[in-house]
């Protein structure tokens, strides 16, 4: 049941993206920016948190969950440190994923070569 909720919510978030891709001229890069920023805004107005409580990874794993983590981090940062927190909070909360992407990206670039599509 838990996994079914994750599957359906996660899948539906991606479906919204797919519909945008197929019916507009937006590229995947546009979609990522739109979803991330939506996550930030929905997180800020308190609408994303219930979704995460309901579907956990189904709402955390999509990039909108990354946006939620950014805005939650910024708000928590303000609560703890005031104005400084607004600047450090978002990145602090998401630093793990970003640092991992940089490190693994670099390692992958050293180890692997791109292959032609067939």
């Amino acid at each position, binding site marked *: 049941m838990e996994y079914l909720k994750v599957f359906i919510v996660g899948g539906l978030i991606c479906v919204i993206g797919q519909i945008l891709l197929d019916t507009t001229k937006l590229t995947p890069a546009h979609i990522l920016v739109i979803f991330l920023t939506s996550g930030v805004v929905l997180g800020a107005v308190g609408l994303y948190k219930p979704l995460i409580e309901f579907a956990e990874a189904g709402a955390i794993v999509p990039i909108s969950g990354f946006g939620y983590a950014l805005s939650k981090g910024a708000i928590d940062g303000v609560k703890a440190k005031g104005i400084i927190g607004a600047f450090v909070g978002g990145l602090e909360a998401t630093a793990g994923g970003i640092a991992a992407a940089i490190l693994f990206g*670099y390692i992958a670039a050293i180890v692997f070569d791109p292959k032609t599509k067939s």
Partner: protein
Amino acid sequence: MDNMNNKEYQKYAERKIPKPTYFKNILYAFVVGGAICVFGQIIRNMLFKFGLDENSVTIATSIILVFVGSFLTGIGIYDKIGKIGGAGAAIPITGFANSIVSPAMEYKREGFIFGVAARMFSIAGPVLVYGVGSSVIVGILYLIFTKGR
């Protein structure tokens, strides 16, 4: 062609393009996106069993998913998942990893400074710019509204 102006031609040409297979694309995006999220949930549940707190679990899950996305990109599988899953592969955080790793790999021949490192964020850079930027604005607005009370 003299009897057609630009607008008319653009409309006409648009009609000649085969339509995407909407239903199939949406179904695959749903299945692939849902499956990646379920995979993330499995990792979360395992990490909870190790006794990590909520915050650490969320961070560790994204690190592991980023690793998996990077690895699958490196061995040349993620682009195939993306071709099938479309947004279902792009929107999960594994797709974010794919957007960082793929240009980094691609530009290895141009060197490790101007190639790998400089190109790494050619697709994901905008995501960070808008994400981090908007989060700071959210923080400042929160400060203003809570101070105002």
